[in-house]
């Protein structure tokens, strides 16, 4: 963890991107009419892992 705090400027963009992806995904899940499957599952997916928001954007939105 020392490395992380010492070089925070270098890692900050990573963290910001993660947070933005997460927020956009959550807002989208809330505002979208219908997701591919129950909405609450996608909220959990977005929370669970770093890849969650991306997985939601690719597979969670209904293609129509």
């Amino acid at each position: 963890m020392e490395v992380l705090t010492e070089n925070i400027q270098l890692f900050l963009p990573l963290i910001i991107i993660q947070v933005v992806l997460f927020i956009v995904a959550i807002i989208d899940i809330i505002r979208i009419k219908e997701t591919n499957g129950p909405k609450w599952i996608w909220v959990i997916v977005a929370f669970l892992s770093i890849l969650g928001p991306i997985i939601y954007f690719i597979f969670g939105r209904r293609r129509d």
Partner: protein
Amino acid sequence: MQWMTLLKKELLENWRNKKWIWVPLVIILLSIMDPLTTYFMPQILDSVGGMPEGTVIEMPEFAPAEVVLITLGQLSSLGVLIVVLITMGTITGERKSGVSELVLVKPVSFWNYISAKWVSFLLLVWASLFFGILVHWYYINILFGNLSFTEFLTIFFFFGVWLTFVVSLTIFYSSVVKSTGLVAFFTILTIMAMSLVTEIFQYVLDWSPNNLSDYIFESLVNGEVVSDLWITAGITFGISLLLLVSSVQIFKRKEMVIS
């Protein structure tokens, strides 16, 4: 201008489904992951632990061009996967939902319909790649040493040609195959088969599109764009155009049969 209207429709759609937000962010993420992990590898190994006391790990010093090559490898696998996944549903999805019928019932030419899709995805992919490589270039300059702005443009432009090919191939399969899943499957299969063939016949296939990353690396090492890179890029772009034209032809024939 019918074509502009169609392009606007595609761009609006990609904005509404948030692709214009998350695709650039993910490409940036992929482009800075490798410089960081490469640079901090000793510390990462240290914190993971499991090494016997007193182990000294000698890490080789990486030249900027080598880190660029590692990142291009990452973008060629995960980046290409993302590009295929965002493009795959563009025609099959509209066929399924009936949007393509709504559009094509009007006097819209098949060429306009498909080429507008092609351009809209290229804009998205090229813009994402621009930001990705820009941030990557910044990190390389901080962590590994000097990489000039011309070199940045070289990486961006020629890797963009490779992604143009990937978009074209996906749209081609999207007009041939009916199911979205199969589009992704065939596209990935084709790219893997191509890299295998390039690997086996490497002495004959000097200008295979799969060699673009290697030639970019070579150009960075040499300090100038090698002629092989220009030729390979030209061939790759040519194949992309050919794929676009043939996908319009195939799409035309298929729609005729249906209607």
